[in-house]
């Protein structure tokens, strides 16, 4: 499979000269499976340029895997060109709620006055699914979801194909107020799906000294993400969901702090940036940009 980052900013789009190197679009990652299918991880503002790139006639089925419905993970949906092409099948997966269906919750955004086009007026064939906690097969690939600690119903996704595993946990506070490195792995939120991943995209919103002012906000500090990665046997960590106030230079300081907490080689920890492309195949994991 091949993953490409179209947006890795957290909370709010943050365009500008100080965020050029890592990008200002919010969460969206394209995963092209070897079998030809395309998964789209989250629908942040990065989904708009992705939609332009894949607006081709041969793309007639897409799976959009939503981790949760906060606006920075949903706002691109209304600007995703394949949704406005009749004949395209778009499957939208998201966390279940005990109160409202996934479609009803998404329709809160895709309806006036928040958005001019209602969900029922979208030309593509859209099907909604609860994020599956058991594996779902797409060709020879599988994916599954697991609920994780964040604000409101939220899941992470584990995608496996040809012996490689990519895990996506963009919004996650594994142990609110606690130190992940001190906990047994089985008691850490996210361990269930992150264990032994070849590549883990993970929330890295706060530097450690910023975290005490943000306990319970649903995001990780560096100790959290690196503690989880170390405890779960992850091979490569991609720091994701950059705080909108973290300009490029500060992100690079954050990266250095993360590498100090990492049990592996330095190149096993990287900052996500728009355009980052990762190939996972029988030969291993390769970063192409």
């Amino acid at each position, binding site marked *: 499979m091949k993953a490409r980052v179209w947006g890795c900013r957290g909370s709010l789009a943050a365009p500008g000269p100080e965020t050029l190197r890592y990008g200002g679009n919010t969460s969206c990652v394209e995963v092209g499976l070897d079998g030809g299918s395309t998964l789209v991880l989250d629908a942040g503002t990065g989904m708009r340029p992705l939609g332009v790139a894949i607006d081709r006639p041969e793309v007639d089925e897409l799976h959009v895997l939503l981790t949760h419905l906060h606006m920075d993970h949903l706002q691109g949906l209304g600007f995703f060109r394949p949704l406005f092409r009749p004949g395209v099948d778009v499957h939208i997966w998201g*966390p279940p709620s005990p109160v409202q269906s996934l479609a009803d919750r998404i329709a809160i955004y895709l309806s006036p006055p928040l958005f001019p086009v209602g969900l029922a007026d979208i030309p593509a064939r859209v099907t909604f699914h609860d994020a599956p906690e058991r594996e779902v097969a797409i060709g020879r690939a599988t994916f599954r979801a697991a*609920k*994780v600690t964040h604000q409101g119903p939220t899941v992470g996704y584990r995608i496996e194909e040809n012996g490689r595993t990519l895990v996506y946990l963009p919004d996650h506070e594994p142990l609110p*107020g606690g130190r992940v490195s001190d906990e047994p792995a089985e008691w850490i939120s996210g361990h269930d799906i992150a264990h032994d991943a070849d590549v883990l995209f993970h929330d890295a919103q706060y530097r450690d000294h910023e975290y005490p002012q943000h306990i319970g906000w649903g995001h990780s500090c560096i100790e959290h993400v690196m503690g989880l990665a170390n405890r779960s046997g992850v091979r490569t960590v991609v720091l994701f969901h950059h705080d909108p106030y973290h300009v490029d230079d500060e992100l690079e300081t954050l990266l250095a702090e993360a590498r100090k907490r990492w049990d592996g080689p330095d190149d096993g920890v990287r900052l996500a940036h728009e355009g980052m492309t990762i190939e996972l195949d029988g030969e291993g994991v390769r970063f192409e940009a």
Partner: protein
Amino acid sequence: MATSAGEPKSLPLILARELGSNLATPMFLIDAAGTLVFYNEAAELLIGRPFAEVGEMPALDFGDELALSDSDGSPLRRRDTPAGIAFFERRPAHKLVVATGYDGVRRHVEATAYPLFGATDDMHGVLTVFWEAREPADGS
């Protein structure tokens, strides 16, 4: 949803344990398979031994070790304890029980248990909070 030692726990259990770890109110957790998976430091004072020493065990065995009885001294079946009612009948329950801790001290304990249902109504286990009660004046 069943878990055992070393297996990843479900999110409701993780969150319940995190809550309990930050409370001065004694509490213990049973998972959906009926295994005692955690009690907090406050509970250690009443149970008489740290959880790290006791470890995970079937809740049935845990109840036996505490020699649970009704306030009148008659033995309590597992399914009649607050945790048992919450587990088997999937509803909250409250009761005054008598328990003998690992330290050999017999205590009257008020216990309230409720089942943990996930977002899709799936059962993840039972959370029980408890606290030492004043013994009744007649000593029963």
